[in-house]
C-alpha cells in the first residue's frame, strides 16, 4: 500500500505527450470557467489536477473527452490534441473519442444492470467481442484490472447497484477499462469513498499507470502526492503551476501554490 508520507516516484516513466492542450478556454454562457490553459499530459503517467472548489479542474478534465458537449450552455475554445489529432475537429466523432478517453466519475454510477452487463456495456456497444466467450474474457480481465474480480466472481449476475460504494467505484473503473481506452480521466474518484476503499482505488490507479495515461482530479493533496507523477494546480480558472509532483509539493515556484498546499487558501 502506498504510504501517506512518501511521495510517489519522481521519475516520469514516459515523456511522450499523449494529450496536448493549448490556450483552452471554457465558457458557461457568459461566464469563463477556464482561462487559456496550456497542459501536456504525458503517456503512462498519472497527472493530478488540484485546486480549490470551483477552480475549473473538473471542467477542464471534461474537455479531454468532450463531455462538455452534453451541457447545452458550455462552449470550449482552444486546441486539444490527442496523439497529435485535434479532438474538437469536425472529423472527430465525440462518441469514438470517448471510447478512447475513458472516464470515471465522482460518484460511483453503475447502471441498474448486473455486474457483468455493467462491464460488458462498452465492449458490446463498440463491438469489441467476437463471441460470448470473448466477452466473458474481456469482462473477467477488466474486473481483474479493476481489482474487484475476487469479490464479485461468484455473483456476476447480481445487480451492480447492490455493491458497496468502494466496490461500485472499482466496478466503474473496470467498466471504463473494458473499452480499452488510451487515457483514463478520473473526476475525484475517491471523494465518496471511505479510507480503505480509497486506498484500494489509489493502488489501482498506480497499476493502471503501466498501461494508460491517467488524469485525476482530486481535492486531497495527500492523494495527489501519493498517486501522481505530475501535478497541475488550478486557481480561479487559471493554471497556476504545472510540474513534477515532488517539485510542486516540496518546492513550489508560485506563492499561490505554496499557500494552497500548505492549507492557507482553499
Amino acid at each position, binding site marked *: 500500500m502506498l504510504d501517506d508520507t512518501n511521495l510517489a516516484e519522481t521519475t516520469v516513466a514516459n515523456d511522450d505527450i499523449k494529450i496536448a492542450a493549448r490556450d483552452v478556454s471554457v465558457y458557461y454562457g457568459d461566464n469563463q470557467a477556464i482561462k487559456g490553459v496550456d497542459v501536456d499530459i504525458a503517456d503512462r503517467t498519472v497527472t493530478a489536477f488540484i485546486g480549490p472548489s470551483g477552480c475549473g479542474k473538473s471542467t477542464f478534465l471534461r474537455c479531454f473527452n468532450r463531455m462538455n458537449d452534453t451541457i447545452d450552455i458550455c462552449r470550449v475554445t482552444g486546441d486539444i490534441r490527442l496523439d497529435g489529432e485535434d479532438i474538437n475537429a469536425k472529423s472527430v466523432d465525440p462518441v469514438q473519442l*470517448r471510447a*478512447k478517453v475513458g*472516464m470515471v466519475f465522482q460518484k460511483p*454510477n453503475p447502471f*441498474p444492470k448486473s455486474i457483468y452487463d455493467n462491464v460488458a456495456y462498452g465492449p458490446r*456497444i463498440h463491438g469489441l467481442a467476437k463471441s460470448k466467450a470473448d466477452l466473458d474474457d474481456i469482462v473477467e480481465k477488466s474486473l481483474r484490472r479493476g481489482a474487484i474480480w475476487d469479490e464479485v466472481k461468484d455473483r456476476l449476475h447480481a445487480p451492480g447497484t447492490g455493491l458497496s460504494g468502494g466496490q461500485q467505484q472499482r466496478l466503474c473503473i473496470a467498466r*471504463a477499462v473494458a*473499452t480499452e481506452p488510451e487515457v483514463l480521466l478520473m473526476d475525484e474518484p475517491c471523494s465518496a469513498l471511505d479510507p480503505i476503499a480509497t486506498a484500494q482505488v489509489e493502488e489501482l490507479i498506480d497499476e493502471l499507470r503501466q498501461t494508460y495515461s491517467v488524469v485525476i482530479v482530486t481535492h486531497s493533496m495527500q492523494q495527489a502526492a501519493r498517486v501522481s507523477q505530475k501535478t497541475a494546480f488550478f486557481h480561479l480558472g487559471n493554471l497556476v503551476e504545472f510540474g513534477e509532483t515532488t517539485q510542486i509539493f516540496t518546492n513550489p515556484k508560485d506563492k499561490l501554490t505554496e499557500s494552497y498546499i500548505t492549507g492557507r487558501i482553499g
Partner: protein
Amino acid sequence: MPLLWLLLIVFAIAAFGYVLGRRRALVSANRDARHLHSLPSYYGWNVALKTIIPAVMLLLVWLLVQPIVVYNTISSSLPSDLVDSASSQGLLMSEISRVSDGLSTAVSKGVLSEELAASSSLDAETATAQLKEAGAVVTNDITAPVLSAAQDYRSATLSGRWIMALVVIIVAFAGAIFGLSQSNKDFRARNVVETVIRYLLIGAASIAILTTIGIVFSLVFNTIEFFRLYPASHFFFGLEWAPSFSGRGGSSELGVLPLLWGTLYISIVALIVAVPIGLFAAIYLSEYAGPKVRGFAKPLLEILAGIPTIVYGLFALLTVGPLLVSVFGDGGVLGVNWQGGGRAVMTAGIVMGIMLIPFVSSLSDDIINAVPQAMRDGSYGLGATKSETIKQVIIPAALPGIVGAILLAASRAIGETMIVVLGAGAAARLSLNPFEAMTTVTAKIVSQLTGDSDFASPEALVAFALGMSLFVITLGLNVFALYIVRKYREQYD
C-alpha cells in the same frame, strides 16, 4: 333560530376569545412577548379553538340525534288504531313529518300564524287548505290525529332547536372561559394549536379513506342484492348479454363476459396506440428536444389531457369512425369490406389511445427525467451515443416507473365511458374482429341505469355488479402498478 345565526354567534365568541386570550397572555408576561412560551397569537387561537370545537361538535351531534329522538317519541305516542289505518308506521311518520314541515312553511309564508299553527284549535280542513295555499307538499286530506301528531312533532323539533342553541352557546362560553383561564405565560399554547392542526390533517385524510369505503359499501349491498336475484355463475360465465326491459327479469341474459371482452379489447387497442406514441414523445421531449421546443410542446401535449372525454367521443363519432370506414369499409381505399359502420372497437380504441397519449407521455417524461444525470454521464463517458444510452441505460432504469404509468393508463382506459358510447356502439358481442361494434362494462352501466329503472329488478341491479367487477379489476391493476413501481424503485440509487 336559524343555524347560520347560531354558528355566527359561536364564531363571534371565538373571535372575542381570541383577542382576550392573546391580551391575557401578554399581560401575564408583562406585555413582553419574549417571556411567553408561544407567540401571542397561539394563545388567541387556543381560546378560539376551545370555543369553536366543542360547540360545533355538540351542534353536529345534536343535529344528528334530535330527529331520531323526536321520531321515536312521536311514533311511540301514536294511537295504535291510527297506525293500523295507515299501511305502515314508516309511511305514517313520513306523512306526519311532511305535515309538520308544511306547517312551518305556511308560518314562514305568513299564511298561518305561529299561534294558530301550534294551537289545538286548528282543524284538519283549514290546515289542508292553508298548507296547499302555502305550496307545501300535501298529498291527501290531513286527518285530525295526524295533524295533532304533526303539531307535536313540530313543537318538539322547534323546542329542541331552541334548547340546542342555548346549550351550544353555553358550551362555547364555557370553552372560551376555560381557554382564557389557561392563558398565562407558561402555558404551551403552541403545542395545543399544533395538536389541533394534526387532528385536522388526520380528519382530512380519513375523509378520503372513509369515502372510498362508503363507495365500496354502496356497491357491495346492491351487488349482493343482485346476486340474490340472479345466479352468480350466469353473471360471471354467461356468454350472452341480453337484458330484457319488458318482462320482469327471468328472460334476461346478463353474462358479463362479452362486456369484459369489449372492455379489454378496446383498452388493448387504446394502449397499442398510446404506449408507443406516448413513450416516444416522452423520450423525444426529455432527451432530444431543446428547451424551446420542450417549452411549447409539453404544454401543448398536456392540453390533450384537458379535453373532456365527451369531446373525444364526438371526434370518434364524426371524424375517426367515417375515416376508418373510408379505409377499411365497403368501397374504401383498401378495397376490403371489413368495417360495416363507423362505430367499432378500432374507432373507440384509437380515440381512447389518443386521449391516453398525454397521460403516458407526461408520466414517462417525469420518470425519465428522474433517472440521475450520473447514469447518462456514465454511458456517454464510455462512448455510447444518445440512442444507445436511451435504449440501454435510461429506459431500463426508468422501466418500473414506465410500467407503472402504463398500468395507470390501462386502468383509465378500462374506466372510460363516453368515448365507448359514441365510438364503439352499444352492442355487446364476443368477437375477434376489431372492426365490429362492441361495448364495455362502463357503457352498459350507463345504459342500464338511464331512463326508467326499477331498482328492484336484476336488469338495474346488474349495474352495481358490473361496477363492482370493474372496481375490483382497476383496483387490482393499480395495486399491481404500485407493487411494480415499489419493487424496482430501489434500483435507482
